[in-house]
């Protein structure tokens, strides 16, 4: 079969196409974005008419996917780890309704927080929902597991989670494809009340989910988990997902003296875990993310076997693993290079030259001068970089949409004016409902919706509220005269400053929409435009 050089994300996407999905649903979020983008750009996917339009947020994505599963077709939902918090209501309940057509939730974790606000471990969510979790260690496994994931999803009528981390998502390697499979025909669930979670039905569905646990565990024992025996039983190693690669990197001849449980599928395979614990004097658990397996095996009292890992300091409690960290935990000598010369300066990410947010912040910060610092609640996107020097223009970044509702709470507490700064895509993701709260409560807040007409931070995906922002605000009840659209550009600074000052002084909800296209999106659009002209 054909061999392709693919990112982990792309391997998952190609596998989803080959396994016969009819739609993929997602909101962009690093490091998961490239899964959906690959399908959007795939000629094959287009020919197969696979749905791949971005959703407004992860919850709407998860729900649309569940609807597709209800209709008997295969589907995938993709998100970054914190996106699963947004989708959680649907995700956890979908475990109880169960699936009809196969459904896989891909959650991409970001240990070391390369591009995130926390390093939560999605495996806990999968365990919480009581569904099978697949955790590939490499790109090929990711590809193969998607096929398998859909099979068990349909065999047990259950949603399945695939958990990956940044390192796998954004690393490229060769992947061999399998024979592509046709899409499912539309087929209703056998029981038309399967998805009706009224208490009486939900109780039955939940019992079924509980009964399935033993089957899920049997799958774990027979598929992607492997036990490699070793002669030296002074130590047993449990290596989860990508951690296995860092382990064998330290044994170039691949000859590990200790028994190793390569763990890629949950619930935990009790047979292998029992075996390694019975046979070895001490256990080392290697896992990227939280010490989930370590904690499970160790137990609260840790009165059994000595279990080493992130909890006892054998491995740092936070941050992503690497070959050196694993070598140290095994007591091996590690190589080190030279130190970074002292003159090397930090180079944090920054707003691009010509970015419209720079002009918006210039006006906002100046307009706020009479009121003093510390009253700007912001959100998640490129504009979060406004927290850094030289702008230092914002005071919060917590979760998608929190700017508006936090500003409301602060205004309720008497801090006026309170300002919210949110991007257009984040606003339609999770800001709209908060704005409705503020309107209903006549809160004294000024909401600045930075409309650069794209989802910038993740690379310029379509923004769900494109050309709709002011109408959404109007529809939510913001007074027309307090919806102010302006062009954030240097030579309109004085004019814009006055708008900011006026609206800050207004006692009620006002919305300012600085609207100018993202400079990166603009130059990309121009390049394409001129390339097409050249061709003509």
């Amino acid at each position, binding site marked *: 079969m054909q061999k392709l*050089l693919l990112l982990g994300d792309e391997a998952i996407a190609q596998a989803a196409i080959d396994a016969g999905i009819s739609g993929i649903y997602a909101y962009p979020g*690093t490091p998961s974005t490239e899964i959906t983008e690959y399908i959007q750009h795939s000629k094959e996917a287009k020919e197969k008419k696979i749905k791949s339009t971005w959703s407004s947020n992860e919850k709407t994505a998860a729900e649309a996917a569940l609807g597709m599963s209800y209709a008997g077709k295969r589907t995938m939902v993709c998100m970054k780890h914190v996106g699963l918090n947004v989708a959680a209501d649907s995700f956890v309940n979908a475990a109880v309704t169960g699936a009809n057509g196969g459904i896989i939730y891909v959650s991409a974790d970001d240990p070391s927080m390369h*591009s995130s606000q926390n390093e939560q471990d999605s495996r806990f969510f999968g365990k919480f929902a009581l569904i099978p979790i697949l955790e590939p260690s490499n790109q090929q496994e990711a590809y193969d597991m998607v096929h398998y994931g859909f099979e068990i999803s349909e065999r047990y009528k259950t949603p399945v989670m695939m958990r990956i981390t940044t390192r796998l998502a954004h690393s490229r*390697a*060769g992947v061999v494809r399998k024979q592509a499979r046709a899409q499912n025909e539309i087929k209703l669930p056998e029981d038309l009340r399967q998805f009706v979670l009224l208490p009486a039905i939900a109780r039955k569905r939940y019992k079924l989910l509980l009964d399935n646990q033993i089957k899920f565990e049997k799958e774990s024992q027979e598929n992607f988990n492997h036990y490699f025996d070793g002669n030296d039983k002074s130590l047993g190693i449990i290596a989860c997902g990508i951690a296995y690669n860092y382990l064998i*990197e330290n044994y170039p001849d691949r000859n590990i003296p200790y028994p190793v449980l390569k763990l890629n599928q949950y619930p935990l395979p009790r047979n292998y875990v029992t075996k390694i614990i019975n046979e070895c004097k001490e256990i080392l658990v290697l896992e990227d993310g939280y010490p989930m397996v370590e904690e499970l095996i160790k137990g609260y009292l840790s009165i059994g076997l000595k279990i080493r890992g992130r909890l006892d300091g054998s491995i740092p409690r936070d941050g992503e693993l690497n*070959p050196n960290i694993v070598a140290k935990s095994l007591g091996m000598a590690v*190589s080190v290079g030279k130190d970074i010369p002292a003159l090397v*300066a930090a*180079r944090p990410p920054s707003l691009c030259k010509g970015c419209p947010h720079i002009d918006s912040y210039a006006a906002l910060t100046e307009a706020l001068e009479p009121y003093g610092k510390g009253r700007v609640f912001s959100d998640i996107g490129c504009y979060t970089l406004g927290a850094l020097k030289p702008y230092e223009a914002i005071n919060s970044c917590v979760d998608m949409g929190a700017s508006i509702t936090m500003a409301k709470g602060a205004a309720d507490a008497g801090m006026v004016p309170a300002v919210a700064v949110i991007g257009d895509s984040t606003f339609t993701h999770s800001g709209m409902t908060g704005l409705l709260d503020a309107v209903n409560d006549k809160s004294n807040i000024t909401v600045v919706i930075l409309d650069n007409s794209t989802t910038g931070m993740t690379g310029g995906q379509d923004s769900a509220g494109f050309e709709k922002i002011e109408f959404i605000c109007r529809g939510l009840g913001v007074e027309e005269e307090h919806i102010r659209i302006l062009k954030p550009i240097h030579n309109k600074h004085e004019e814009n400053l006055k708008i900011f000052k006026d609206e800050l002084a207004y006692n009620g909800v006002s919305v300012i929409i600085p609207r100018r296209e993202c400079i990166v999106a603009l130059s990309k659009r121009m390049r394409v435009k001129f390339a097409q002209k050249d061709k003509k």
Partner: protein
Amino acid sequence: MKKDIILAGVGGQGILSIAAIIGLAAVEAGLYLKQAEVHGMSQRGGDVQSHLRLSDKEIASDLIPEGKADMIISVEPMESLRYLPMLSPDGWVITNTKPFINIPNYPAIEHVIAEIGKVKRHIIIDADLIANDIGSPKSANMVILGAASPFLDIEFGKLENAIRFLFRKKGDEVINKNIEALNLGRKHSEKML
């Protein structure tokens, strides 16, 4: 054969096109490859790096172990120094001399060059100047790649083929300029050796 390469630069400088060409050439040579990239927030003008691993045997880790990299290929001089902890004692630093200054505290360039000079094996090259000279400023990356090519253990012709493939939609002129840039970079290194 095993080559562990750190590619360094600033977000938006296009280190991934260098990676793509080495990757294509490695695949043509029948080698295994793993390449860890940086996407997301750092791409907004922050420091970015890519771990590129080539081998005739299967590769385990996506990340290169510290102190084990065979070379650092950098499109920006200060960025070449940021990854010295990754470089093996016998490793090469191949770097552009043209600074990318988007921070207020960028050190004096002569001090940066002096630090690079302390690395036992290094090649410094003004890739932007060479690329400008041939009227193709965007080919600076290919000059750097050319300068690194003597240390890659990949047949030079395969790198040229990879350029032809990667830029196939951009026409012969772009392809020829990039191949010229690649050759000029290589000549520079051969003179230094």
